[in-house]
């Protein structure tokens, strides 16, 4: 059985969101870079994988998937379904809630910070500090809710690790690469949750992927 192919660069936290799920699920996969500089993302080959011409995309045999969180769920369902708890109505509902929260509350405010601090300078632009500061304030409000939640349960969906926790890893690793990592310090249960995630071999593997080569 050929390994699954994950298309995209490890620079992208959407790509490494998928890598985290694939690693934790123990999926057999390889990362295939897509060259944006040569417009490979607009090539007919890539548009067949992702008609919006974006990364990540996943190929598993004849199946092509796109949108990082769909890819993550597919990997979990295929290779480690306990990450989704789909046999249990209430537990799977809590996993869904916190996967939506990751997208709509956490990553939605981290994205502009990460773009301004990590990406914009790489593209020859400047960092808009106002955008960073506004979103850091929003992030603190979100982290208050996370702190309250993680005071009551070990992981976000309950006392079990789920895809909801794992979907936070790639953007949080990127946050640690900015000068704003200390924003987590005021939230001890969030820090403890993050530390336990960092201990996982899957997360360490993704962290190593994201380090710029020497």
């Amino acid at each position, binding site marked *: 059985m050929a390994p699954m192919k994950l298309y995209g660069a490890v620079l992208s936290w959407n790509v490494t969101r998928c890598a985290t799920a694939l690693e934790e699920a123990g999926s057999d996969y390889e990362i295939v870079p897509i060259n944006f500089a040569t417009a490979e993302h607009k090539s007919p080959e890539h548009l067949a994988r992702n008609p919006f011409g974006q990364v990540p995309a996943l190929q598993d045999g004849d199946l092509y998937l796109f949108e990082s969180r769909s890819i993550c769920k597919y990997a979990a369902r295929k290779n480690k379904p306990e990450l989704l708890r789909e046999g249990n109505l209430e537990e799977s509902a809590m996993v869904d*809630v916190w996967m*939506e929260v990751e997208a709509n509350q956490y990553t939605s405010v981290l994205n502009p910070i990460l773009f301004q601090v990590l990406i914009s300078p790489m593209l020859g632009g400047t960092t808009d500090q106002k955008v960073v500061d506004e979103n850091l304030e929003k992030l603190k409000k979100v982290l208050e809710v996370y702190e309250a939640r993680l005071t009551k349960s070990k992981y976000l969906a309950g006392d079990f690790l789920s895809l909801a926790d794992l979907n936070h890893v790639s953007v949080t690793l990127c946050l640690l690469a900015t000068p704003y990592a200390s924003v987590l310090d005021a939230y001890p249960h969030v820090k403890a949750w993050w530390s336990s995630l960092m201990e996982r071999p899957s997360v360490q593997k993704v962290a190593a992927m994201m380090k710029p080569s020497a």
Partner: protein
Amino acid sequence: MAPMKVYGWAVSPWMARALVCLEEAGVEYEIVPMSRCGGDHRRPEHLARNPFGEIPVLEDGDLTLYQSRAIARYVLRKYKPELVKEGDLEGSAMVDVWMEVEAHNIEATLWPIIRHCIIGQYVGRDRDQAVIDENLEKLRRLLPVYEARLSVCKYLAGDDITAADLCHFGFMRYFMATEYAGVVDAFPHVKAWWDALLARPSVQKVMAGMPPDFGYASGNIP
């Protein structure tokens, strides 16, 4: 069995996402109306249900859920699992793909247009045509992909309706009430798909609570 409760204001496109799935599921539920202008969503009793202070919120016995797509998935998984293609590895993946496409592309482009074309006039916000035009441009680049998809299958995840289609309803409802509906109508398969959604009894029932003025001029300010 006590009916499920859904907290929020029925004119909300996020509320509509949850309600249309409840209707499709055929489950007994009641809406607990809340007032957005009265700040009900920020009160302690609501924050106890949803610490992010948003609607909709679903209560099913002891279970309290928020985030409209999580509510949609729970309700359908419980009562109509075929609508999330439960147990079908590839089918469920396609449902997820198109729910994500809606979340990151459709909601994100239609909501600013709706805010400026419909809501703005009632809340003292000047219409910003530049914002409308920017999002219409994005929409014009998305729709050919939808058209291509809906040319090969009847609904987004395959030939059967699923949560992926239903989740588009709320934002589409208001966008199609603006002067820009023609942007969608220009794509015949997308238009046919939208008309098929509109014909569903579940959609018609939920639409009855969503006047095109968002409630502002018809005396039901959210």
